[in-house]
């Protein structure tokens, strides 16, 4: 694989799953269909690509779009010193995507954070609970439609 970029290899391997590729400022970015995530992740996790590290996993809320939530995954390969960004879109009604915990253990808490803040659910996650907010918290605070000044205190406030 040495000479080929990761994007070219993935486009050849999964032509039906890859929606778009780009490399802004040299950061290889891959936009895929949501049902392809686990298959592509399994492929990237093993050699020859060997993306051992899941650097980050997060979500972006685009209230105007038909597919409201955009998941963003950042991978890093220690063996070949390569980085890869994977994006996929999720509709609001079915904000469900496969869990990456089976490939990268740190996805556990990262996915719990995204579940807590955005309400995206992860199929196959071993323990999908809120991470930051308390269990009684209603709603998902990083959604753009969460009221900015809405407070949910745990004890009665003095004023």
């Amino acid at each position: 694989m040495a000479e080929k970029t990761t994007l070219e290899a993935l486009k050849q391997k999964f032509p039906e799953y890859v929606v778009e590729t780009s490399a802004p400022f040299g950061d290889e970015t891959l936009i895929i269909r949501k049902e392809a995530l686990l298959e592509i992740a399994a492929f990237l996790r093993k050699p020859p690509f060997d993306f051992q590290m899941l650097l980050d996993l997060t979500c972006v809320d685009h209230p105007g779009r038909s597919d409201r939530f955009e998941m963003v995954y950042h991978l890093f390969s220690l063996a070949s010193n390569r980085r890869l960004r994977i994006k996929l879109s999720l509709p609001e009604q079915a904000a469900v995507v496969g869990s990456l915990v089976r490939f990268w253990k740190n996805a556990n808490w990262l996915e719990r954070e995204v579940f807590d803040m955005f309400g995206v659910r992860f199929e196959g996650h071993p323990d999908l609970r809120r991470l930051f907010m308390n269990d009684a918290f209603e709603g998902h605070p990083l959604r753009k439609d969460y009221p900015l000044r809405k407070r949910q205190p745990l004890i009665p406030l003095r004023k």
Partner: protein
Amino acid sequence: MQGNFITTKLNAMLGWARKFSLFHYPYVTACCGMEYMSTACAHFDIDRFGAGWTRFSPRQSDLLLVVGTISQKQAPILRIVYDQMTEPKWVIAFGACAVSGGIYDNYAVVQGVDQVIPVDVYIPGCPPRPEMVLDGLLKLQEKIQQQKQDWRWQKRQP
């Protein structure tokens, strides 16, 4: 008898004793803690004002320093710490977050600790300079000296 006794009022004497023997409990949750440490250590030396004893137990403290951001999840803990302190007790809100929530006008942060516990002195700043902290401490001492003192044998109003 000359020079062997002084006369004062009990209220003033208690105020004088209390303002120079503040045992403080630092409730440090955020970056203001750095300025707190600077104030408490040798350079600025909070001990000059009789507040050098840091007690890490609320039961032995009479000044609660709320240093830093208090989130909604922290609020019940802060309330318990305050309730555990014995009377008489005072509270300083240290830094913009403790005073008003600071820049964090969002779902997670209490908008000023006076929503949770009563506050005597507010020290703004992000973070406040140690000089401001010492100024706040002097203001609190003045307040303690002026206030009506509560003591053990005092007749309590039902």
